[in-house]
């Protein structure tokens, strides 16, 4: 039987994830709309804040809109395409990696693409709308924004894979992975100029939220090759570490005998 060895299966997984999400029409629409509304309410705080103070160390309300646009669309894109990046610890702890290992595809890519989060579609759309509302919708700026979103999505995915891969050594690290994700989102949504010194180092290493929010917005505010270079290098390094951690950890995988009623 002739076989295609490309990555077409990833598209098939995304398609079936979408079909699965749309199987329940009302919850689909509610989750999508609910997440957008949630983001709007969250942003209302910054509207009130900037009503009192014109700027925070050089950041204006428009910069915050760009920050929310990049982070929401980046996180949304990551969770839409690679929704299992936040669930690897649970999958491994439950022994559910078996079903991916029994199939002829790269395990990590297969795991990541096997789930799409519906609320994250709301995040993604919210980010696009916020970008348009922030103004400056020129072709060059749109291209830079899309690049920022893609890099942010890669960073979110890689850092969550890295954090979730701890499960191979700790055996139970689901809560730790959840806290890490919350920290990533929280620290991503602060103005980049708010932190310096050790805090800034922390935000580009331990919890690399600087790469998902502050630095991409820096690139949008004042585009230059150096910022883009740092962003690309940081994302590539993180991705390499994540891949390495998962592959090394995979050798420690012990499966399990839990009875799963459904997937």
């Amino acid at each position, binding site marked *: *039987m002739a076989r295609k*060895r490309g990555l077409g*299966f990833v598209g*098939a997984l995304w398609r079936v994830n979408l079909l699965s999400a749309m199987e329940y029409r009302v919850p689909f629409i509610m989750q999508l709309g609910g997440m957008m509304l949630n983001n709007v309410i969250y942003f209302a705080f910054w509207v009130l804040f900037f009503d009192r103070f014109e700027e925070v160390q050089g950041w204006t309300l428009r910069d915050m809109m760009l920050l929310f646009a990049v982070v929401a669309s980046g996180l949304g894109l990551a969770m839409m395409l690679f929704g299992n990046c936040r669930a690897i610890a649970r999958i491994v702890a439950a022994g559910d*990696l*078996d079903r991916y290992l029994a199939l002829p595809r790269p395990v990590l890519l297969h795991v990541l693409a096997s789930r799409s989060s519906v609320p994250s579609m709301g995040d993604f759309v919210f980010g696009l709308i916020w970008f348009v509302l922030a103004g400056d919708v020129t072709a060059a700026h749109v291209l830079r924004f899309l690049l920022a979103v893609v890099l942010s999505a890669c960073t979110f995915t890689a850092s969550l894979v890295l954090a979730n891969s701890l499960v191979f050594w700790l055996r139970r690290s689901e809560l730790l992975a959840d806290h890490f994700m919350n920290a990533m989102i929280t620290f991503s949504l602060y103005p980049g100029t708010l932190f310096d010194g050790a805090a800034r180092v922390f935000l580009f290493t331990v919890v690399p939220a600087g790469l998902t929010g502050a630095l991409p917005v820096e690139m949008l505010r004042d585009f230059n090759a150096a910022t883009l270079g740092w962003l690309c290098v940081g994302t590539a390094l993180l991705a390499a570490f994540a891949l390495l951690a998962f592959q090394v950890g995979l050798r420690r995988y012990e499966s399990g005998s839990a009875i799963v009623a*459904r*997937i």
Partner: protein
Amino acid sequence: MPAPNKGKGVWRNKVVSIRVSRLTKSFRTRSKQEGLAGSWRALWKPEWRQVPAVRDISFLMERGEALGFIGPNGAGKSTTIKILCGILHPDSGTAEVLGHVPWQDRQQLCYEIGSVFGQRPQLWYHLPPVDSFHVYGAIYGLDRDATRRRVDFLVDVFELQHLLHTPVRKLSLGQRMRCEVAVSLLHAPKLLLLDEPSIGLDIVAKQRIRDTIRYMRDEEGVGVLLTSHDAGDIEALCNRVIVISDGQLIFDDTMDELKRRHLTAKQVNVRYLEEGERSLPMAGVETVAAGRYGMQIRFDPRTVGVDAVISGLNGLGSMVDITISDPDLEDIIGTIYAENALDPDAA
């Protein structure tokens, strides 16, 4: 080392699909005393122990053969199958499946084998099976036409016409399992590894699964390695059986040989016309159950003559019915486990 029961000469001219030699796998497990104090101690000073799951197992499987792999819970069946699929790495020993070392050539091997883990569904729960078939087609690298042709064939063989467009969540367990087995055959594998495919199914659903697996085995020459706690599955599908217990191989031969070697007892059910006390005090005869109108006994025909037993029973009253039968495979397997002094429920 428990060597494969077949002599080397027997295997010389056969194509081997699975070759396992001295396979060993253990898991590192934390042991903890019971209660809060035990948990507290384990938190600060954990004690670890190695729990052997598979111990020095060796066997061969011929291409196209149907091999039953049985053993009590915790015997190491699933661990062995997971090693052979490339899911787990062994501690030591070698294995080749269709010429591949599973834990080194996992991806290549997966194109050539199909696997079903009865406890782990593969189909998308909220979608009809047809959508899952097409995703698996893409995962196995089949183009749309090839997938459609194969799906049509499997739908026909497994009689899935009425199930194909119904969401999986609305299928019965038996219907879903038929779809699970069908999807594992989508890429026309040479070998099918089935881990408890009939778990939780009723007798009708089991029979249908057995029939379709037997059909694929006979028509497409698919080799089958099957683990099951249901002796009926093994009896219906396999001509050879391996018994594994406590991680060790304790029997490897044909189903006929298993019966010949372990069918040492005869079972007799007898009913009488009149009411009365029923017991047969004869050396070598065990009374399994006794009532006012009948009894069930068991004896070894090599030590006690059948005619002596019949005349003894005849002397107890006027018989209206008598049945002499062999114990079923379930009992034989139970006896093998018991002979190895193991707790069948040991996890």
